[in-house]
Structures are given as structure tokens and as C-alpha cells.
């Protein structure tokens, strides 16, 4: 088991290690670059004053909540003065002059950034294979076929691999349809997607605005609570940022529940799944039943519509969100004879296949004559999916599902988009509903690969969701 944030902080406070030594340990791993989990590793020189400031605060006995903690940041967060590419050619030379709201909170709390994690291009993908900087390799190997390189999941694949390989203590990811939870599951770590509206989207390269949400990928549930405490704040510059009262997510995390907890398991999610996956649900059920938690069957009415709804709405928003990458003001420009040629060349050469595909799908579903049949209809179905979740969450406190329908697969294995999209079948409905979901490691597959389960809670109930996940984690933890 890797060291948790609280263990690291204890070591720093007790001077068993210095901030610089800690940083160098993680930096060395990040620099080795075996799994291609970083698009950019920040020079030590650029962090030296942060390291010294942090050490001073420890020496003075007043460290900040994340003081000295080395973090990875998905290359989708704009970081001031540090190249931010969204793993796309079109932004491969882009250096923002501003810091995203979320990463600013992490800096304010004393953390130190190791670098920018690789991810799928514009966060579009479930295997981290669409990155302009090449695929990320999952640190885990199939014990029956050790030589194969496996995908880490996506789109926050670099973040998940970096945490799993130990090149950062935690990483900031983003989740639009499962991009935190799915790679966390495939890399054997914890991934939390907070309620939509919890963490500001300001300064995050947008994919699908009504779905995008920042969240942590960590080694343990408690670490997720540490990061969430830092990043979960109202932001006036994001109109969709909720101004509800935030809680301290650490305070009760190791306490048992005072009231009786009921968890629903959607039977329709478990049709046609492998034994590996069924085992995860069974393990979790057994582990939590010991704590007096009750499990009931629930059934969604809308599950079969979720993926198609998602693959209309997310591309629609993406097609518009990505219009600004035109080679005119920043990013890579490919010249041409006319203005239209500049657009055509810059965008054709600047975007990869998956991004191009989604822009085309998005433009299609929004175009005159198709809008009502696709976009408007999908919005209505999204409303029904929300209502469906609400109905079930009126009966139970949480929902338990697998995080993914399968273990990590070989790089290059899933070539057709539809089978790739199906990887997010358990995470997409939650995203459409805007609900919080957390994936925790729940066991190993027959091939010795990590798998995870997902807990879904009600809106803005991250505190009890983390509490439940921490409880399950104690029973389910596995060693590498």
C-alpha cells in the first residue's frame, strides 16, 4: 500500500523526510516516463521556491492542508506559464497565462505540481489511446500475458497511471462520462467524480460543459477527501458552480454511519456481465453487510438509453466548445490560400480521428432538420434518466454498480468506436444525472488485474459517499 496524504504529512511534520526529498522521489519516477503518463514534467527549478516555502511552513509548525504534496494535473487544466495541450496537436504549443480555479485552490493549499498528465485528446476516449502524445501504459500487467501493454482507461489515463505507478501522490482528473472512475478502476486506485456544479470548470479545457466535472484520482478514499476539501468551492466565474454550503469531507470519514444504510443494486446493470464483474459486486455486498448495511434490488427504466443520449449531447456540446480552436489566435495554425483553407487545414491536421468524429456527430445532431430528432429528444431522455435516479435514490441511500464492464484491455484491442463507448456504460448514466460517483478498487480479475465498484450518492452528498467508500475500502483493499 502506498503512503496516504495523512501518512506523508505526518512524516513531513516529524521531519522523517523533507519536502524536497519527497518531491525528488516522485519526480524521479515521473521523469523515468516508462508509462508515458506525463505530457510534461515540470522542471525542478520552477518548483524550487514552492518547495522551500512549503518546508518553511512545516518548520514553523503551520503547514497548509496539502503542503508539499506532489500532485499530477491532467493536461486539461490550464496552468499559468505551463504548457497545456489537452493532449491535442492543435494546442501542442499553448501556454496559458492563467491558472484554472481548481488548480489554484490546490496551489493555495500548498501542493506542488509534478507535471501535466497525459489524457485522451480533449478528454475524448476511454483508453487514453487518442492522445497526440501517444498512449499511456497501464502499470498493471495481465499475469497470464505479462508482455502485453494494457490501456489505463481514459480519458484521465495518465492521471490514473501516474498515481498507480507512484509518480504523484494524487492527480486531478476530469470526468465527463466516466473519465475519472473508469481509469481509476482499471488502474486499481480511487476515482471520485463530484456532483456537477461542485468544482468550478473555470480554466478547464471544455469538452461537454453540462457534464464536465473535475475530481481527484488517489490511492485511497481519505486522500480523495483531502483533495475534495481543497477544490470543492463556489466560483462566481462559473455560472453553473453551485453555491451550496460545503462540508469538511475528512471529519467523519472513518466513522461508521449513525443511521441504517440501504444500498440499491440495479439488476439491469448486471445482465450479461462476466463472473469477474459479478464477483466485485458480491465481494462488496458481503463486506458491507458485515457492517449492517442492507442491500436491495433496484431497476432502472432508462439504462438502455443512456449511452445513445450521452453520445448525442456530449458531441453536440463538444462540436461548439471546440470551435475556438481555429488556428487564428493561438495554437497550431496550418496555412492556406484562403480563410476557409486555414480553418480546414488547421483543424484537419490539428485534431485526431476521435475528436473529428465527435465534432462531426455533434454538428450533425444540431443541424437544421435533425435537431428535434436528436438533440431535443436526447435532452428529454436526459431528464427522464435524472428522474429515474431520483426515484431510486428516494428508496435507497446509495447505488452500487460495477465501474466498468471489463478489466484493462490491450492497447490497440478495441478498434471500433462503439465497443469503446460501451466501456462507459456504468458511468455515463450518473454523469447525465449530474450525480456524484466514486470508484474504489474491489478485487482482482482472474488475470490478476484490478477491478472497481462504483458507489453513487445523492446530489452534493459527497460526505456520506466518501464515508461509505472508506468503509468498503477497509474491507476490500488488495495489495499489488
Amino acid at each position, binding site marked *: 500500500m502506498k503512503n496516504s496524504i495523512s501518512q506523508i504529512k505526518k512524516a513531513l511534520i516529524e521531519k522523517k523526510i523533507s519536502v524536497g526529498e519527497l518531491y525528488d522521489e516522485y519526480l524521479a519516477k515521473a521523469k523515468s516516463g516508462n508509462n508515458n503518463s506525463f505530457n510534461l514534467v515540470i522542471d525542478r527549478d520552477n518548483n524550487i521556491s514552492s518547495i522551500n516555502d512549503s518546508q518553511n511552513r512545516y518548520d514553523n509548525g503551520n503547514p497548509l492542508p496539502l503542503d508539499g504534496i506532489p500532485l499530477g494535473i491532467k493536461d486539461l487544466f490550464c496552468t499559468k506559464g505551463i504548457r497545456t495541450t489537452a493532449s491535442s496537436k492543435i494546442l501542442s504549443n499553448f501556454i496559458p497565462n492563467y491558472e484554472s480555479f481548481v488548480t489554484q485552490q490546490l496551489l493555495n493549499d500548498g501542493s506542488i505540481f509534478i507535471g501535466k498528465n497525459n489524457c485522451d485528446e480533449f478528454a475524448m476516449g476511454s483508453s487514453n489511446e487518442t492522445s497526440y502524445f501517444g498512449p499511456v501504459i497501464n502499470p498493471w500487467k495481465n499475469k497470464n500475458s505479462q508482455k502485453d501493454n494494457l490501456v489505463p482507461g481514459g480519458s484521465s489515463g495518465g492521471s490514473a497511471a501516474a498515481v498507480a505507478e507512484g509518480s504523484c501522490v494524487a492527480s486531478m482528473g476530469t470526468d465527463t462520462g466516466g473519465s475519472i472512475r473508469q481509469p481509476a478502476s482499471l488502474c486499481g486506485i480511487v476515482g471520485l467524480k463530484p456532483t456537477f456544479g461542485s468544482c468550478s470548470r473555470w480554466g478547464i479545457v471544455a469538452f461537454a460543459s453540462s457534464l464536465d466535472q473535475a475530481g481527484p484520482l488517489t490511492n485511497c478514499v481519505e486522500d480523495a477527501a483531502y483533495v475534495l476539501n481543497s477544490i470543492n468551492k463556489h466560483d462566481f*466565474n462559473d455560472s453553473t458552480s453551485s453555491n451550496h454550503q460545503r462540508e469538511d469531507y475528512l471529519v467523519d470519514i472513518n466513522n461508521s454511519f449513525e443511521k441504517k444504510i440501504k444500498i440499491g443494486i440495479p439488476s439491469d446493470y448486471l445482465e450479461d456481465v462476466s463472473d469477474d464483474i459479478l464477483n466485485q459486486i458480491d465481494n462488496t455486498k458481503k463486506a458491507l453487510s458485515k457492517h449492517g448495511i442492507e442491500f436491495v434490488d433496484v431497476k432502472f427504466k432508462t439504462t438502455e438509453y443512456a449511452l445513445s443520449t450521452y453520445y448525442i449531447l456530449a458531441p453536440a456540446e463538444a462540436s461548439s466548445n471546440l470551435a475556438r480552436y481555429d488556428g487564428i489566435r493561438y495554437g497550431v495554425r496550418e496555412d492556406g490560400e484562403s480563410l476557409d483553407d486555414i480553418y480546414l487545414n488547421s483543424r484537419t491536421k490539428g485534431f485526431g480521428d476521435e475528436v473529428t468524429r465527435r465534432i462531426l456527430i455533434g454538428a450533425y445532431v444540431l443541424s437544421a432538420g435533425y*435537431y428535434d430528432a436528436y438533440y431535443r429528444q436526447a435532452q428529454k431522455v436526459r431528464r427522464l434518466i435524472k428522474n429515474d435516479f431520483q426515484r431510486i435514490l428516494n428508496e435507497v441511500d446509495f447505488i452500487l454498480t460495477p465501474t466498468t464492464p471489463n478489466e484493462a484491455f490491450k492497447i490497440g484491442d478495441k478498434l471500433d468506436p462503439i465497443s469503446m463507448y460501451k466501456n462507459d456504460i456504468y458511468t455515463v448514466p450518473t454523469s447525465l444525472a449530474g450525480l456524484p460517483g466514486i470508484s474504489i478498487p474491489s478485487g482482482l480479475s482472474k488475470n490478476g488485474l484490478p477491478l472497481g465498484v462504483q458507489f453513487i450518492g445523492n446530489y452534493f452528498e459527497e460526505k456520506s459517499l466518501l464515508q461509505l467508500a472508506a468503509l468498503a475500502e477497509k474491507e476490500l483493499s488488495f495489495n499489488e
Partner: protein
Amino acid sequence: MSNNWEMVIGLEVHAQLKTSSKLFSSSPNQFGSDPNENVNFIDSGMPGMLPVMNFGCIEMAIKTGYALNFNINKHSVFERKNYFYPDLPQGYQISQFEFPILSEGYINIETGDNQKKIRIERAHLEQDAGKSIHDIDPKYSFIDLNRVGTPLLEIVSYPDLSSADEVINYISSLRQLLMYIDVCDGNMQEGSLRADVNLSVRKKGQELGTRCEIKNLNSFKFIKQAIEYEFQRQINIIDGGGEIEQNTMLFDTSTGETRAMRSKEFSHDYRYFPDPDLLPVNLSQEQIDKIKPLVGELPQDKFNKYLDNYSLDKDIAKIIIAEKQNANLFEKMISESTVKPKFIAAWLVGDIFAFIKENNLEVNSLNDKTKDITDLLRLISDDVISNKAGKEILPKVLNGEGKPSELVKELGLEQVSDSGELEKVIDEALVGEEENILKFQGGSDRVLGYFVGKCLKATKGKGNPKLINKILLERLKK
């Protein structure tokens, strides 16, 4: 030729709102800055930047709603209008489409002696785009993003207009109202008010023809020229056996002609959809009601007040209400002095406006001179100086050359109202005028004027004519 043809016109008027910052960003909303000076990360479409609605724009839209008799919608939605152009950094314009903030309004315009009601379908808030400048360099175009994101209210009329004059009347009335409620500066030259003209022609009584849209007209002169040219162009096509194509036209100000910019088959599919970065605008009745008192007096209210309370002539009242700054100046003078409003009004639309026009001034620029002006008018109406002397002093007062009473003394223009002194003058004037005196007594009134003139001349124009008149009559009737 065009006798039995009529034109049918609907207008889209874009009014730039007078907010201090832009519709969705905190950059200053001002004209005339250096290129790309008023541009922040949001305006320039940087990755991850998000719009935040400026509620001041909503308040201005609500005010407009009251002034133009609109339904003010509690629910409105900002959508994205998607198209590529270098002066549109986000790749989309945020605008209201399916759910505008205002719907079904109207204004009345004057057509000859009658009033005509022009119905307005809707008005919605949207962002302006930047400016592309193509004439600096033969090879490159230049982009100025200062205007990106400035708030516009697009006011869309029904096709209720049927002549260039009506169109100009309609736009003038809109402009007047928007300036009155302080939501738009009305400066057409700077593009604060621009119009797209949708025009079709038909034989009287027949069904509507195919329309063409002439884009982006920003002066009354061009609007009139464009309409007249386009009217004739369409008639000529139909008379020649052709058909009108639904085109978007540009008006060439150098030739006075319209030409097609793009035809319908190349028209954009803007792929509107609700902007997921913004929440729908949901207003409470309370929020809407709160704005009502801010609307203030509208031109028609003032017109009625001027006639009823101040007994102004209609024509004079109309001139004063034409622009809010006129009315403001007028009302300021009334509130600061006891000179009769009617007397003030006559001087305002006469010599004062003439002075403003001659010197190319803004009416506003006299706001700090009202006390001096009314002091001067007081001297005139109290007969301390003559009307003629008043006209002489006025420009000096308006130029700030001195206080009226000082100027009167300095220039020696004070009227002689001492009756003893005037009696002497009159007695001298009547010497040797026995013949004329007899004429007067015989009933010739004209002689009186002759004598007054003679006395005034003797006082070098400073004699109080009323007093001279009075004393003369007493003398002559003896």
C-alpha cells in the same frame, strides 16, 4: 412604373446597450479605445474561459420592455449561434433564440397627420462580434476584438412598414425611446444603433413576395438610399419576367447600390442550442416590477405635460422632446428659475438651439450654464434689457464670457426705464411734428410706430419700448 407596386418592410434593429462592462465578461464596453485594448481571456476565446451574465443587461432589456410595450418574459434562454469567423473568437455568438426576453411589443409612429402602430415581434439579448479590417494591408486582414461581447438588444419588427419614410420614422422613434430610458446612446455613426432591412415588393393587395435582407445599415441616409434602390431593383426583376431570390444583400455606400452577399442556399446553419455554460434567465415578478420606476418619463408623457402644464405650442414641445437632453435642459431651467416655461421654451428652440447648431455643440454641454441662461431670460422678461439686447448677450453668456448682469453693464445695454428721462426724450422727439400728431389724432395708428422708433433711436436703443409707448400715448392724446 412603380405606381401599383408597394414595399413591405420588416426591420431588425441592433441597439448597443450602455452598460459599463460587456454582456458576459468584465471588460469595459466603450467605443474608441486602441485596438484590442478592451479584451480579456473570455473575449478572446481562450480555452476553459466561461461567460458570466451581466445582470445590468437584463435590467436594460426590462426597461426597454416597458418602453416598447413588450411582454417581459420571466423565462429566457441564451443559446449559441455557431459559425466560424476570425472576429468571433469563441466560434459562436451567444444570443437568445427560442426564448427571447421580450416578445410582442409595439410603438406608434407618425405618418403625416396620422399615427401608425408598428408591431414588434421580439427583442433579444446577444453578444456583438469583433471587427475585421481588410484595408490596412493587401495580404492580411486585421482583427480588433474590442467590440467582441458588447451587449446588443436586437429588436425585430413585424413587416408593418411600407416606405423609407416610415422606416426612418420607426428607427427615429426607437432611437428616441432607447435614449430616453438610457439604455443606448443612439450614436449611429459609432454603430450603437444599426439596422437590417428585410424588404419585399408586391402589387397592391397581393400576397407577400420573396424578401431580401440588407445588412448593417447605420445612417438614415443610407437606409433611405438602400430601400429605394432595392425597391426598384426588385420591381425591375419582376417586370423583366424574373423572380426574386431570397438573398442577403450588402449596401455599397459608394455606389448607392445593393448587391448580393450570399443566397439562401449558401445560408448558414447556425446549429443553435442552449449554452450549457449559462443557466436560463428566470426572473421573478418582483425583479421585473422593481425596474419599472427606472423607466422614467417617456417622450409622449413629456409632450402631454408640456402642453397641459406649460401651455407650450405643439411644434415647440415636439422639438424639445425630440431628444432627452433637450428635455433635460429645458426642465432644468424651469426648476431653477421663475421665468415662464413658455418664455424659456421659445428662447431654447430659437436662439439657444441656433447657437448649439452653429457651434457644433452637444445640448448637454450647456447643462452647467442653465443658471446664467435663466438669469439672462429673467432680465429680458423683466424688461431690464430689450429682446434685441438679449440676443446680443446670449452668445457671450453661452460662451462663458461673463454673468448676464455684468455683461449688460459692461456693454451698456440696460434699458432706460426712468420715466422722467424718457419724458424728456419724447418731448424733444415731438418737437416740429405737429403734422404727424394731427394725423395720429385723426386715427392713423401707424404714426405711433414712427414716434416709438424715433424715441428708441434717440436712446440708442436702450429706451424701454413699452414705457415709451405708454408715455407717448399719454402725450399724444392730450
